[in-house]
């Protein structure tokens, strides 16, 4: 049995869905083929990981919300039925129009009131707080000095140097196929161009790195910011503010609070997003007495 066919059947093999004859052929192949053996091991790991994902639970008031939704729908349908039931008494068109408008206004205002209540409940139930998110939005384009933290000496300052590769791939290397493929194509193009350059100029291999890097797009700090936001959420942290460049709106600084218990994990994962200027930064004694740890991270594209 050839590798291509074996790989097609591995999924069913793991599920025990193949007949005995096919199983024998497959196992015989896998015993001798390292590539397929690795493929099988990887698939088994993925399936095992999928099976052990946390089961999310519905909110505690789920049944109540279903009832409320049912009631709202029933009310709406009752009104619509009444509106469209033919009447024996002739109603002047103007009166019918006014009645319909009044009913619509009542329905809309009821929906708005309920929606606000739902939003309020959702916000109060939200376990991860972005306490000053509105503040960060109003701080866009502001002067750096105006937003210097009041307790600067208890804030850990660090710079994160982000290279183009890091902004594309980063530590969470799950990217859409498009992005990964684009990166591959850029590198392939770079390799072709390098060969051409070497042929024409006779210069050494060292040039190929420059060509490759030059062809990569500049680091996308917004992508790094997204990953940083994920990391902050993961570590139960809070964004205090984000400062952006006045002209390009690229993120420049981000101030965060990270619970002390998750600080080491945060720094470990942060180092995969770029090169940290001062590593490993540890909280000062003063900062340690205060939980969470305050950080002010400067995002800098690597040259």
């Amino acid at each position, binding site marked *: 049995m050839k590798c291509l066919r074996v*790989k*097609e059947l*591995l*999924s*069913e093999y793991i*599920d*025990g*869905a*193949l*007949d005995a004859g096919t199983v024998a052929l497959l196992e015989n192949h896998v015993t001798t083929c390292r590539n397929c053996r690795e*493929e099988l091991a*990887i*698939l088994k790991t*993925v*399936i095992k*990981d*999928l*099976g052990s*994902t*946390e*089961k*999310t*639970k*519905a909110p505690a008031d*789920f*049944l109540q*919300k*279903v009832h409320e*939704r*049912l009631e709202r*729908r029933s009310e709406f349908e009752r009104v619509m039925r009444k509106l469209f039931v033919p009447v024996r008494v002739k109603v002047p068109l103007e009166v019918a129009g006014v009645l319909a408008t009044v009913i619509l206004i009542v329905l809309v205002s009821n929906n708005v009131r309920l929606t606000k209540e739902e939003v309020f409940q*959702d916000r109060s139930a*939200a376990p*991860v707080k*972005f306490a000053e*998110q509105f503040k*960060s*939005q109003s701080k866009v384009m502001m002067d750096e000095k105006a937003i210097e933290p009041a307790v600067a000496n208890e804030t850990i300052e660090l710079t994160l140097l982000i290279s183009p590769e890091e902004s594309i*791939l980063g530590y*969470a*290397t*799950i*990217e859409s*196929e498009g992005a990964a493929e684009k990166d591959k194509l850029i590198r392939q193009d770079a390799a072709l161009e390098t060969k051409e350059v070497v042929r024409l100029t006779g210069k050494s291999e060292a040039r190929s790195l420059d060509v490759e890097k030059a062809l990569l797009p500049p680091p996308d700090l917004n992508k790094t*910011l*997204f990953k940083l*936001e*994920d990391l902050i*959420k*993961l*570590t*139960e942290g809070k964004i205090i503010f*984000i400062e*952006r460049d006045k002209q390009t*709106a690229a*993120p420049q600084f981000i101030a965060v609070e990270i619970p002390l*218990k*998750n600080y080491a*994990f945060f720094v470990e*994962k942060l180092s995969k997003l770029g090169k940290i200027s001062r590593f490993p930064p540890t909280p000062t004694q003063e900062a340690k007495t205060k939980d969470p740890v305050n950080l002010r991270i400067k995002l800098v594209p690597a040259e």
Partner: protein
Amino acid sequence: MDAGIDKPNMQNQEDSALVSAFQRGDKSAFDRLVLKYKDMVFNLCYRFLGNREEADDCAQETFIKVYRSLKNFRLESAFSTWLYRIAVNTCKNKITSLEYRHRKNTIALNAERKSEDGFYTLEIKDGSLSPKEILEKKEKDMLLQRAIDSLPEDQKAIVVLRDIEGLSYGEISEIGGYKLGTVKSKLARARQALAKKLRA
């Protein structure tokens, strides 16, 4: 041979009893069905949509549809299979809705993401794990969910139903209206795609 996890008969019998009770006028039987299946439906919607708010909305909508159709439900097939089918279709409708697509595109284009996606509200209660291990587990969950999010709709539905919900090929075929061969091939492709993304 279809190796899968068959629904125990007892569960089917309980469901049938509740459905019959509802059809005879006992509205509280519907509540009991909701309480029994809300977490399952919510988890399915969450894994399909990758977002707690959307999952909450879809899960509620699923049970509204169940309520509307329950009096006509015939007990020839398992209630849970029917429920899964409604949940998957509701999720698919949500994905194709203009509002959902606009929201997703807006989030992708905006420089700052304004809405939380609720990933990290997962409570991992395992006394044997250290805080770091809990975070590693959450991170793994996040990466897995990102990978699942990137799959085409059918592959996503099938891999979630099989590898997260633990349904058999036959059940998945019935829920999604796929041929058995399609379930097998799409499942294989989904798993390979996930393996590739997680390995990168």
